[in-house]
């Protein structure tokens, strides 16, 4: 990557507050191109807030965010977003195809309707997440895993370079989880950059190239091998010993079974 090309995501001294109560302090972060980055931390660590701040949905009280060297507003088209599944009303009167087509809306100008090309993109994206047979289903008839696939298809339809995914593995079945992991690595292979909020430490090591350990501030950030250590996780999760001891167990087991990193 040449030094002139701005990185997909650069965050400088970002602080975010809700009702004057800071939830994220002084985040500094540069995400290089083509990486799959996991955001890990305990509940209330500000993982979703970080994603929302990057997208401009949670206004920062200080600091700035740049997407490919520009403020978010100017580069919104280059960012794909998968919100948490619970953030919408699944009884809303739309079908699966309607939802995926919404991924195209950012590319259509004012007063334009999605055309034939957009429908074709939506179809291809539904096929990628194996939801094409459900294209005409009303969204309330979907299972949790299917809802998550629809959201992922909508983000794919955005055809972006940087993807932000908020808990895409929360409450989905095993088949959906592995399908999503597959798609994420395909996107990385195409040179896309991905940031994923994740709360399962046991799989975090396996899924991601880089990890961002977050607990209201940035505890550490770097390649997974360097960051995923007992000391750093303890610093992130504080005194939550039950989680830590579980992870310590799985760490020691994995060290015995799989001595090699990526």
């Amino acid at each position, binding site marked *: 990557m040449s030094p002139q090309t701005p990185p997909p995501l650069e965050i400088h001294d970002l602080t975010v507050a809700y*009702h004057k109560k800071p939830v994220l302090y002084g985040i500094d972060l540069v995400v290089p191109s083509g990486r799959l980055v996991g955001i890990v931390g305990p509940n209330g660590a500000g993982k979703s807030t970080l994603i*929302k701040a990057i*997208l*401009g*949905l949670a206004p920062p009280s200080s600091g700035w965010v740049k997407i490919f060297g520009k403020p978010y*507003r100017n580069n*919104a*088209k280059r*960012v794909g*977003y998968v*919100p948490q599944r619970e*953030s*919408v*009303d699944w009884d*809303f*009167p*739309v*079908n699966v195809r*309607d*939802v995926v087509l*919404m991924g195209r*809306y*950012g590319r*259509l100008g*004012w*007063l334009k*309707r*999605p055309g034939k090309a957009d429908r074709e993109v939506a179809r291809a994206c539904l096929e990628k997440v194996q939801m094409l047979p459900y294209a005409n289903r*009303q969204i*309330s008839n979907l299972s949790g895993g299917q809802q998550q696939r629809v959201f992922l298809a*909508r983000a794919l339809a*955005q055809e972006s370079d940087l993807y932000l995914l908020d808990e895409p593995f929360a409450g989905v079945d095993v088949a959906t989880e592995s399908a999503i992991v597959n798609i994420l690595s395909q996107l990385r292979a195409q040179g896309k950059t991905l940031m994923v909020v994740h709360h399962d430490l046991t799989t975090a090591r396996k899924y991601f190239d880089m990890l961002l350990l977050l607990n209201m501030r940035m505890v550490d950030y770097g390649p997974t091998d360097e960051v995923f250590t007992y000391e750093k996780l303890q610093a992130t999760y504080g005194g939550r010993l039950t989680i830590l001891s579980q992870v310590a167990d799985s760490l020691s087991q994995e060290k015995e079974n799989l001595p090699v990193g990526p």
Partner: protein
Amino acid sequence: MHPNHPYRALALAGGLLLLTAGDLSAAKIGDLSDTRFWDQLIRFFSLRDPSLRYTLTASLFLGTCCGLLGSFIVVRKLSLMGDTLSHAVLPGVALGFLWTMTKNPWAIFVGATLAGLLGTVVVHWIHTTTHIKEDSAMGLVLSGFYALGICLFTMIQQLPTANKAGLDKFLFGQAAALSAEDLWMIGIVTILSLLAIVLFYKEFLVTSFDFGFAQALGLSARFFHYLIMLLLALSVVIALQAVGVVLVSALLITPAATAFLLTDRMHRMLIYASLFGMGAGVAGAFFSYLGNSLPTGPFIIVAASTLFALALLFSNRYGIIPRWIRNLSRDRRIQIENTLKAVYHVREKNAFSIDGIPVKALQNRRKLSPSEVEKEIRQLVRRGFASMDEPDPEALPDRERKLFLTPSGWETACRIVRNHRLWELYLTESVRYQPDHVHDDAEEIEHLLGEDIVRQLERRLNYPTRDPHGKLIPSLQDLSKTPLAGPSR
């Protein structure tokens, strides 16, 4: 069967309208002479009365406008917002009056809209800066603004100078007293709303469904939110004089909720809601025209609510009556399939050696009374699943009455038995049930298994021929091995 077929819903809507018209007018005929009724009907539809023309046009416009905007507030769970707005505009109406000291409709319109917008801002402010939730915030604004409005109205009534006649029509609504200027305002707001929704449909759709995602797309989600709120405030203000403070929210919510029962696509919901709104508007105008002093607004809402009630009863997906009919026909099908299965069992007991089975044997198998079995047999014969060999009891007193299945009846019988036994085998082999636990479950499932699931089960169980109890699982080949003879005469 498809619940969203547009024509079906339109036909339903038309039918419902006719029904309401029929019912209510019938009640009216009692105190009007027939000639008077027909006379009125002709006068209504020929639009000879200028005041009727105003009322009718206003009702059509209001129905469209409120149906469209109401759809958005219903799907956004902001139904209470319509009520909040209609109450919050009252102090604005009073201030608009005090500003000009006349009933200048434009001044009142501006005052009311500003007050409505102030109300929404206060609701938003309370629920974003405190931990009081949105419903409480709306309740606070609704009652507070309304009370202030009533106080101002009372003060105006005591002023010596002003020409204050007719201010109370904002409280109770009086569609028949609309002026040409009122009608202009109603028309302009309706056309603005229609235009905004047609032009910005995709923006309104995505901001309503997923606000955060719309913002992330780079759309000005906030702008479109406020645009909807502004249009909503305008439509509440124009509807106020026609139906009154309390009923405005019904005009917004009822047609939209009716449409929501009938479709699950937003664009269809918008179309249906405006059609229902217009239908209710015409019905309301008509009934209030029949009697001289009947109020239009309440009649519009009664018509809209009747439409809702009918949709609740008859809608394909949620309707109580279609569901009842579906259950009834399912129960009947299950009963027929059980009779066919009993015939199979009787034949199986005799190693398929006899074709026609005696009615007595079927009755023993089904454990039913003779009359009940006769009824079941009649059902089978009527549906072409069986035929009866009925010897003349006087000529051949010894011969039994026998039942013969037709090829389609025999196929159905085999299918049900196959489903039953496949399911039993699946439960014992794959789910590890005990063989004596599986029968009751299979009794239910046998009627529900589709062909594709049966294929899957067969593949999974490696095309079995025997169930857990060692009995034959009939397949299509077995069918051809046991050819059927018709009744021998």
